[in-house]
């Protein structure tokens, strides 16, 4: 494993200050990715921290190198007016406590972040070697159907990759993945894995195999994994909130579009995928889409569209 680390974020400075020059960049490695498919309690930081610590203990037992929790794993999903009550600043005691836990094990938790301007973000935090290394604020806040995120939360304005022990990664939160532009930015930004914490509510029961929503998600994860030749690690929660179920089915999909590990539907689970990031390298012998991708063309055409729209 590469031993040169990005510096810990100078709290609360922005994640984008991380250097893109990273010694050992491009080296590949084997690692064990864990998916903690839990049932957070709504608005109960205390109980959810316990769930988190239990899963970390289990991850240590199972020699996991990188553990993913679902979106809003520390808070529950349908927070509504509880948002400010459960929100955490980057320098909060709870986040320091979590950072301490990451000395021997990297992990991602979901929570509500309070910014210095007192805005609230649906965020996920990457902890590694005792520090908070990167924060992704959800960009695409679903506010339709069963969702009301924009009502309660501010919208993130960055999609950034960041360097870790395991190489360059990106995090995207749930709805972010439904916008191919966001996954595209992760890919072009050099991610070899997309970490995707989610809280996806179950619906659609006409399919003889599984929930309608699961089919859609599984197609999305496989599409990015295969087209972009990278790992997609999807950690989805379970449990019920106000009659709405979260369907689980967390998974790691490999750069060939194949399933590396799949957690159960509709119940607590803990899944571990032993992966080798050399697979990304090998598959990019065959898949030249990144090599052939014309960034300048895409950028130029987008600038033209924006110019026309806002003329």
């Amino acid at each position, binding site marked *: 494993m590469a031993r040169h680390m990005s510096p810990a974020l100078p709290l609360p400075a922005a994640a984008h200050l991380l250097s893109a020059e990273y010694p050992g960049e491009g080296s590949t490695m084997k690692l064990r990715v864990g998916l903690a498919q839990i049932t957070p309690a709504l608005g109960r930081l205390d109980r959810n921290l316990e769930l988190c610590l239990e899963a970390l203990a289990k991850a240590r037992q199972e020699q996991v190198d990188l553990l993913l929790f679902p979106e809003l794993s520390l808070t529950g999903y349908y927070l509504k007016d509880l948002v*400010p009550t459960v929100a955490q600043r980057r320098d909060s005691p709870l986040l320091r406590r979590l950072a301490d836990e990451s000395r021997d094990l990297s992990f991602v938790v979901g929570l509500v972040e309070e910014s210095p301007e007192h805005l609230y973000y649906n965020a996920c935090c990457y902890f590694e070697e005792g520090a908070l290394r990167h924060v992704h604020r959800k960009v695409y806040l679903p506010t339709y159907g*069963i969702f009301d995120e924009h009502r309660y939360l501010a919208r993130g304005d960055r999609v950034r990759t960041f360097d870790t022990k395991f190489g360059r990664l990106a995090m995207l939160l749930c709805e972010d993945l439904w916008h191919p532009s966001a996954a595209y930015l992760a890919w072009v930004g050099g991610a070899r894995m997309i970490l995707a914490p989610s809280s996806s*509510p179950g619906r659609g029961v006409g399919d003889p195999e599984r929930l*309608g929503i699961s089919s859609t998600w599984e197609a999305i994860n496989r599409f990015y994994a295969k087209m972009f030749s990278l790992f997609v690690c999807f950690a989805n929660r379970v449990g019920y909130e*106000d009659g709405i179920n979260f369907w689980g089915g967390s998974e790691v999909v490999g750069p060939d579009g194949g399933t590396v590990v799949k957690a159960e539907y509709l119940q607590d689970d803990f899944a571990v995928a032993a992966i080798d990031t050399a697979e990304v390298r090998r598959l990019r012998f065959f898949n030249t889409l990144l090599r052939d991708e014309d960034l300048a063309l895409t950028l130029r055409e987008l600038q033209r569209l924006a110019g026309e729209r806002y003329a």
Partner: protein
Amino acid sequence: MIRATEVNLTINTALVEKLLVGFVANEVRKVGMERVVVGISGGIDSALSTYIAAAALGRENVVGILMPYKTSNPESKEDALRVVGDLGIEHRVIDITPMIDAYFGAFPEADQMRRGNKMARERMTILYDQSAVARALVLGTSNKTELLLGYGTLYGDMASALNPIGDIYKTQVRQLAKAMGVPAPIVAKTPSADLWLGQSDEAELGFTYDEVDRLLYLYVDQRYSSEDLVEAGFDALFVARVAERVRANQFKRRPPLIAKVSERTIDRDFRYARDWGR
């Protein structure tokens, strides 16, 4: 920082009267109706709701229903009749004793709480039946303090078609009742659900409406935290008890939970105003 003693719950009664009278007139007529029925208990909340309805719809369009039980305080009925007489509205007295006793005959061991809740729900069923007779809507009489504390019976006194006073605190109900001419003895008397003899809201709750309204106003309307409220001078245990009570009673303020399985579920992603098309 706010001080507990500085909270001012004074309302502009002329303005609130105009808003609430307009509310009743508008929402009743919008559904093609002219009338309301209201359960008049003798207490200030139902009295005020009745005065608002009479101002909105005319006294000929308000039907007061008195629903005493055999152990109800006779003063309650007197006060209810005072409201009826003062406004000159139609009224009907329906004794709930036969229905309640018919039920609890089989359950003599039932405690006051069960009996009180059954009575509150029996009254709701009667109001809805009488509303069908009168071609009227059922007027609600729960104030904001009660709704937040969950101090009422789900599908009993908390059930109605429209509630003019659900967004004003008990303390503010008193101000408005006085301003709208609710008889002074009704405004002045000790609040009681009168579900059993000698029941007093404030004794049962363990605090006065004056105290709790100031707390609720800061906690709910102004969104101060529990910590802020203690700093403002409220007793920490009092704050914790009220906050927990508000939380634990959220189920009384929400519709039944429906298990979502389809792509479009009632009240989740099937959303229309109650006034849809009105």
